[in-house]
């Protein structure tokens, strides 16, 4: 009798936890459903490949797509070498109990916790005001680098995504069995040769996951680029590294909050959100798939 009551109470609470999960899943579904329903009508090849027209109440989002791609490309070029090499230091070179390695780890954890808008302030204070103005003073060609631009925005995002790359790369290095390193060293290869020819190729899929996650994160962040280079509207595509740029995420913010005619821009807004959401969800799915494959292969090797 008493046991039956305990079982009943347990059943009720267990269902409550299941309900909590159902709540999260249904919110996720609701977001995706709303965006797809609202944006599907607008989404077309023309929408993706034409520029906004008539004060952004008509036309497409090509400049924003182009700007987002350029931004994340530059960011990836900047963040991958630094992130991967830092992870290599932490996992392959750092002596056991190294204080320096511990300090690097603490820094990385804290870097991951810094609010994105503070990264924006940092980009403005360091890259734009300090580096940019110093470059202008040295080169003497007037105001070129000392203002927000796609270069400074992408470098800011590179600092922001650095922890993502370091953590995923280290995980990838950890999944390479020690026996492979030992075999290579025993055959007379040096540590760096072992890294380049044995460890890194084996860890490549995991490192790729880090790159994909970083791109996904970088493509979706708006607060940092708001302060370091994103433009409300530009009639032309960015011409060089010192140009400002349009960005999908910022475009969503602009259309959602600064539009003079909300009803007229509503389809455009939903279309833009669908493009951004599609991009980031696709990237995340790719990362999940690579990861699942790596885990399966990793187990087979071990």
């Amino acid at each position, binding site marked *: 009798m008493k046991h039956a009551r305990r079982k009943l109470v347990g059943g009720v609470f267990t269902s409550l936890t299941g309900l909590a999960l159902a709540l999260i899943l249904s919110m996720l579904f609701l977001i995706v459903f709303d965006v797809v329903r609202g944006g599907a009508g607008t989404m077309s090849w023309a929408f993706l490949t034409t520029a906004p027209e008539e004060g952004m109440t008509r036309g497409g989002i090509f400049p924003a797509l182009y700007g987002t791609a350029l931004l994340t490309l530059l960011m990836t070029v900047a963040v991958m070498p630094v992130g991967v090499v830092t992870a290599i230091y932490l996992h392959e070179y750092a002596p056991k109990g190294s204080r320096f390695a511990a300090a690097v780890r603490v820094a990385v954890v804290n870097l991951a916790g810094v609010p994105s*808008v*503070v990264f924006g*302030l940092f980009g403005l204070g360091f890259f734009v005001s300090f580096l940019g103005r110093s470059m202008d003073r040295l080169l003497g060609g007037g105001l070129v680098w000392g203002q927000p631009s796609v270069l400074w925005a992408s470098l800011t995002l590179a600092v922001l995504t650095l922890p993502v790359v370091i953590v995923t790369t280290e995980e990838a290095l950890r999944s390479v069995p020690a026996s492979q390193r030992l075999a290579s060293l025993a055959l007379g290869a040096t540590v760096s040769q072992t890294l380049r020819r044995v460890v890194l190729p084996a860890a490549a899929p995991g490192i790729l996951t880090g790159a994909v996650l970083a791109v996904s994160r970088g493509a979706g962040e708006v607060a940092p680029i708001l302060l370091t280079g994103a433009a409300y509207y530009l009639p032309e595509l960015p011409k060089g590294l010192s140009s400002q740029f349009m960005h999908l995420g910022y475009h969503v913010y602009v259309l959602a909050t600064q539009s003079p005619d909300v009803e007229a821009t509503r389809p455009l807004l939903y279309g833009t959100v669908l493009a951004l959401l599609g991009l980031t969800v696709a990237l995340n799915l790719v990362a999940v798939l690579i990861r699942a494959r790596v885990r399966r292969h990793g187990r087979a090797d071990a």
Partner: protein
Amino acid sequence: MDARSLGSSFAPREAREAPGLGGPSRWRQRREKLVEAVVTLVAFLGIAALALILVFVAKEALPLFLDTEAMKEVSLSKLFLPQVVREGRPPAFVWQPVSEVPKVSLVPLLLGTLKTTVVALVLALPVGMASALFVAEFAPRRLRVWLKPVVELLAGIPSVVLGFFALMVLASALQALTGAPVRLNALVAGVGLALAIVPVVFTVSEDALSAVPSSYREASLALGATRWETAFKVVLPAATPGLVAASLLALGRAVGETMIVLMASGNAALVSASLFDSTRSMSATIAAEMGEVVVGSPHYSLLFLIGVLLFALTFVLNTAAAAWVRYLNRRVGVAT
């Protein structure tokens, strides 16, 4: 044998620099040393980045405490104590940095951050932890493999999209539900924020719960406890360090999150305890006002000062979380 730190622990330093080596071998040794030096140098960039963030955000805020012009407009008492805004009225907290006489009280912004953060945590902590408990303890194994990545997809949704969703969908739904006089308010922003932090709470909690040794569960079940009793009274307490870490991480994320609050809170810097009033957070203030500010003005420096406060707050939270987890791990004796 531990395969970590190959470069320095596999062989003593003298052995790696054997003196009798000929030309090519010596060249190889030098190259190895050079690679190690470069790798170490690059690893230093992580520390440098964190230091540069603090230095350069603080540097732009510094004029507030040094420049005599700026000190007239901004002082500690003006930032945190009530000020007489209009003759004959009681002193009040007002944030109006671009009026004839700038009013720079940070209290409305601190309150805005507090309100939205509390709403988000009250919603996200129980829901996220309960879901983690379900996935870790009750879900069938085959389902579990799928559930975690799906919930983590929510974490991959950009915050501007969550802000858009809060602005377009949640705001209307919540207004219909609560009858709030203004559409965009602290409650809407808080619910939007909850969507952003619930995956953080879920993932970290689920990792902590899964890391509890199964011998704990087996012992509890063998003593006649039901599955719920085992999960709630044995597994959950053993995972406390991870759950605390999840809460602190979520708190840090909620305090710093910008776009959702910027889009869904209404952005009026009011001093009000009501969740149905429009509100303005610290992070949203930076994002909203940095575009129009005169570079180098006291207002510009003030926005950087808010940034320093946000940085300090999240830094303390992260450090506290790490220290607390280490302490509890030692006490509970479970590796998470």
